């Protein structure tokens, strides 16, 4: 490259939302029957977008791929356009693998890799499995960003190709989890237990949503839940809720329960972090 890079640090960037699209990846066009076969075999997936990010979805600079489709309906979701698989665009395995290959130098020089996110990556496990395996064969660090709700579909062979799991634990009790996501909590706990037993590295993620997840008791419950996984949990990332997904909900004509909700106060976020730190977790 012949350019100069003039890094002006200091101006805040917007909180990140997906929605960037699959620019550069050819969209596949297949007959319906062929398409279904390709999806079954993990050669085709419905993808929302991709992005090259730093220090966001795991270590270093990473190619984050947002899969379309999610079984949860989190009230605070900031990417509701990834909830339904039909809103994604078809991308072929080789297309994505080629892009990963192109970025190997970016990954190796920055200590990064790929992160399969969503939506819910485990909604399309066959494709994810193939991508992860191809990445590992190229020596690329791999991460999945998941709620763990579908953790059962990730068998041991699948997890053998995963270096890091970003586990978004949402909430601490069955009740609050159900209210927040529409689904039960237990599968996530089961998945966490499996990861701990296998020794798969985990980063816990938790979004502080005022009135929904921020109570001291709820955070204690989460801390309690994740305590047994201590030896595999490298860090806990506490993320303040933001309202930047609102226009997406509107655009999709979906009811947004957190309309005009405010982000948590600095004090609340810090209190939450302290709760995790008190349990000995490296918390950011």
């Amino acid at each position, binding site marked *: 490259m012949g350019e100069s890079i003039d890094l002006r640090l200091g101006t805040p960037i917007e909180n990140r939302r997906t929605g960037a699209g699959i620019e*550069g990846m050819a969209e596949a066009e297949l007959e319906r029957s062929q398409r279904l076969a390709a999806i079954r075999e993990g050669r085709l997936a419905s993808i929302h977008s991709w992005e*090259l990010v730093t220090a966001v979805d795991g270590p270093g600079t990473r190619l984050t791929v947002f899969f379309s489709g999610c079984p949860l309906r989190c009230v605070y979701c900031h990417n509701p356009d990834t909830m339904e698989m039909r809103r994604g665009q078809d991308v072929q395995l080789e297309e994505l693998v080629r892009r990963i290959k192109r970025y190997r130098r970016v990954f190796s020089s920055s200590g990064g890799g790929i992160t399969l996110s969503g939506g819910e990556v485990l909604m399309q496990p066959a494709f994810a499995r193939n991508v992860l395996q191809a990445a590992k064969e190229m020596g690329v660090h791999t991460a999945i960003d998941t709620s763990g709700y579908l953790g059962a579909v990730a068998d041991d062979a699948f997890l053998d190709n995963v270096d890091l799991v970003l586990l978004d634990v949402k909430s601490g009790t069955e009740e609050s989890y159900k209210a927040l996501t529409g689904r039960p909590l237990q599968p996530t706990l089961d998945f966490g237990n499996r990861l701990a037993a296998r020794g798969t590295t985990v980063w816990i993620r938790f979004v502080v949503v005022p009135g929904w997840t921020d109570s001291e008791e709820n955070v204690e419950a989460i801390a309690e839940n994740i305590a047994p996984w201590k030896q595999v949990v490298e860090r806990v990332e506490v993320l303040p809720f933001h309202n930047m997904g609102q226009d997406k909900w509107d655009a999709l004509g979906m009811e947004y329960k957190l309309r005009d909700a405010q982000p948590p106060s600095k004090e609340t976020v810090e209190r939450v972090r302290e709760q995790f730190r008190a349990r000995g977790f490296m918390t950011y």
Partner: protein
Amino acid sequence: MTSATTERPTDAVAGGDAWEGFEPGPWQESIDLRDFILRNYTPYEGDASFLAGPTEKTLKVWDHLEKNYLSEERRRRVYDVDTKPPADIDAFPAGYICPEDDVIVGLQTDVPLKRAMMPNGGWRMVETAIKEAGKEPDPEIKKVFTRYRKTHNDGVFDIYTPRIRAARSSHIITGLPDAYGRGRIIGDYRRLALYGADFLIAEKMAAKDAVADQPFSEHWARYREEHSEQIKALKKLVTLGEIYGLDLKRPAANAQEAVQWTYMAYLASVKSQDGAAMSLGRLSAFLDVYFERDLKAGKITESDAQEIIDALVIKLRIVRFLRTIDYDQIFSGDPYWATWSDGGMTEDGRSQVTKTSFRLLQTLRNLGPAPEPNITVFWDPKLPEGYKEFCSAISIETSSIQYESDEQIRGRWGDDAAIACCVSPMRVGKQMQFFGARVNAGKALLYAINGGRDEISGKQVTEEGEFTPVQGDGPLDFDDVWEKYEHMLDWVVGTYVEALNIIHYSHDKYAYESIEMALHDSEIVRTMGCGIAGLSIVADSLSAIKHATVTPVRDETGLIVDYITEGEFPRYGNDDDRADDIAATIVHTVMQKIKEIPMYRDAIPTQSVLTITSNVVYGKATGSFPSGHQKGTPFSPGANPENGADSHGMVASMLSVGKLDYNDALDGISLTNTITPQGLGRTKDEQVKNLVGILDAGFVMDDDCTLTN
């Protein structure tokens, strides 16, 4: 013309004691800074832990400056103007910041921040600037520069053609250096320190007379005349030294003198020229040789060394030129681009990083962040880890470092190259650039569509009937628009380069940079630094025409003033070949057209894709585009994607920019990124490592992994 070998003065040569302990070599026989540095410098592989903080004296001088001058200047815009003597190397008596200002001495005028007139570029700019600063020009001086002494600006307008005037007033070509100093020339200021003025004068005299027995030609006459100018300038430099009690005739004898001498040579330049960019060159490894020698001999401590560099940097931070408010708007303030190039590798694979490279960065901690000097690091993933991490940490703390690909520059311009202004590389002392500002490639696309009618004024700028506008009201056709664009570029580029040739002919004649050129070899390489603005807008607009449906909107006179764009289209800056290839093709096409035109003084044509500061001005004068870019809104800088169009992350935009062929843009490509430190990681350590990773990744890519769909 060849300049014969020179006869060296008998006593000055011998750098005498000044060169004691230095590894001998060809540099002793003739001017060869690179040879001196490579034989004598000490690469430093360690980390920043050896560095010293500011001394009491440094803080006192800096504090005095801030309290009495800088804060006042911020209040008034211009601290003061001297309306009496036009500036020159030896026009002003000595000046100091305060009594403690005795480490590295010398000011442009006799008072800090007081600006001097440099009317050789043109009187009107000077007069406007004086009035804007709340003063009145001296009538006698005005008479001299309007009646008796022709200026660069007068010369240019005597020659300008009608089409240049038309293009200029419709703003398709803007910011040309036709009324101010062109800059982009880096004197090799180190020469004064290593050799002393006597030696340099003797070399120039010998070069001048080496051709004395050749027959007359205009070329020959200019060569001799310019040499005379250079020799006079060097003699004035000696006088300047005397004003400050320094004997610049001899080489510098120690580290403090090496810095002082180098600064005096630079000071002479900024006392006599107000070029748009007055860059410093590549000083660290050179100066470090002297620091190492003094440190080893126990003559100075690390704290002394840092104090000397801090003192130099303080002086560099208070260089000022008399500019108009208009000029400040084009350049977003009054930067003068004291670019100090550092880092990089040698051609034989050694790191050029020295302890002085660290000391330079340390000034940003000791004195706080500042835009000048514009510290530019030639980045290579092979640079020592300690240095890479220190650069990254200082970037995060101060946002005051610019990065360039060392491999690219070294491969093309060697390992003693430096940047003039913000991206233009040149071999120090062996090469200069004719600064060409830039042509509005975005507006050229709108001219193509409208057949040379200006989309804002509605005026026919090109000759009536020379170009056919887009016909009909249907959607734009890519092939049709591209053909018209190419055709229009012939006119735009032709007009632009014609203007540049005239400007530099006139600048050499009426505002010759005698001291800067005295610190160059007698035979040098000249490049014509052409440039374009609006790359991403053209790329996205052509992509929209190709991949979406773009319907033109006409006003009542039939002029196309807006576009309705329906459907999706790939945008440049997302590592998507469909759009990035269009951008690369535009740059290539413009370069081909530039190359077809003969250049003044056989300059080598180059191109830059660079606008750091003038985007607002370009945007203001330009209409709406098929990409959705709105009339009158700022362009994105340089080779940046359109504002907001790069939705796949900064590294993806770096990779898009990387697809522009460096051979088409040898004068450099700029990409400006804004990131928060928090965006780089959770801890300082993580941020530092991630930034190093981004830079490593951005400047080196495998050749075999381009996407081919």
